[in-house]
């Protein structure tokens, strides 16, 4: 018995030029906020951008982007709707407001299903928002998706960086391309993790401020793009060779 979805995954991703996977060793460091803002920022620069929320256990990007009343079109597969010029896909289109008590093996199966039936069409970049840690989803992406690059998010906290280091060790061992590490929620009271990152010979991308205005910006992309957080992310994106 052969699972026919496997050979169709790279087929359905073939028109995507770059795939950026936003990861961290830990939850709550801002992966979803960074992934969403990165997608909006690149779309504003006229890139063709897709965003795929792969955190099936705690999806968040639909709240950040205020996805409502939209649904993928069924057309020889499913076509992600466009939101703020971003082609967007999430399990939330199917699970709605209900809780979805998935074991990771089932989440993995759902992920393979969505990867294989989604028609992304031509995109300059597809951004993947990942669940925390070295999870089934991370291993699935490594296994199934060719040409991925990892964009790592941490906070200045030792608790976050300790888990990020383990993730880094694994990605380096597997020779996965790493764009670099972004330090989110930087506060003046805390020392930067920049020196530690450079010891690992990984590019330190810069830091994003802890921004009191973020909460108000959730669900309103115009306000979001105008925060100090988003402006700094744009600055970092401008000087980072993403693709």
């Amino acid at each position, binding site marked *: 018995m052969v*699972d026919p979805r*496997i050979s169709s995954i790279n087929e359905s991703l073939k028109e995507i030029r770059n795939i950026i996977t936003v990861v961290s060793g830990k939850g709550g460091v801002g992966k979803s906020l960074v992934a969403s803002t990165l997608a909006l920022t690149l779309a504003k620069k006229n890139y063709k951008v897709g965003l795929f929320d792969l955190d099936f256990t705690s999806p968040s990007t639909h709240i950040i982007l205020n996805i409502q009343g939209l649904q993928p079109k069924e057309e*020889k597969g*499913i076509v992600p709707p466009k939101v703020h010029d971003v082609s967007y896909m999430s399990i939330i289109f*199917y699970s709605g407001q209900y809780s*979805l008590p*998935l074991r990771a093996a089932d989440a993995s*199966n759902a992920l393979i299903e969505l990867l294989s039936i989604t028609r992304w069409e031509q995109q300059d970049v597809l951004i993947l928002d990942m669940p925390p840690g070295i999870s089934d989803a991370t291993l699935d992406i490594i296994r199934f998706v060719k040409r991925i690059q990892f964009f790592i998010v941490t906070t200045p906290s030792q608790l976050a960086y300790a888990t990020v280091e383990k993730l880094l060790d694994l990605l380096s061992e597997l020779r996965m391309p790493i764009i670099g590490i972004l330090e989110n929620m930087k506060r003046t009271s805390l020392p930067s993790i920049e020196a530690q990152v450079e010891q690992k010979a990984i590019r330190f991308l810069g830091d994003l401020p802890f921004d009191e205005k973020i909460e108000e910006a959730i669900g309103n992309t115009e306000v979001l793009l105008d925060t100090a957080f988003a402006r700094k992310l744009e600055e970092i994106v401008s000087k980072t060779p993403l693709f």
Partner: protein
Amino acid sequence: MHEWALAEAVLSSATEIAEKEGLSEVTEVKITVGELQQIEVDILEFALSQLKTAKFGKTKFKIETKKAELKCRVCDHRWFFGEQKIDRETAEAIHFVPEIAYICTRCPECGSPDFEIMQGRGVWLERVKGVK
């Protein structure tokens, strides 16, 4: 209608197998379709007939449906998904992503959402026959 995507997956997978086994012509492709996903077999067949390449010119596509059997991890009870009533909207979501069943399906014995889909989940390629 995403049966087309599934048909494409089946054909690309069958092509891979045929190439690996050096088949110049494929005579039979056997496909199992799990009931959980409520695939429209007619559409799947039609999509296969439209999408197939020369290699599949004379292929007989045998499609078999399999009941979706679930097993509770808590009490070991086994049951068939078909015995359950679900609303149209959820059924449609399950059609795309079978795991959406976890939002509403519960073990009929103990109420647990912690069950395993034993069989009848998705589309499987059972067998590719042909001549070398």
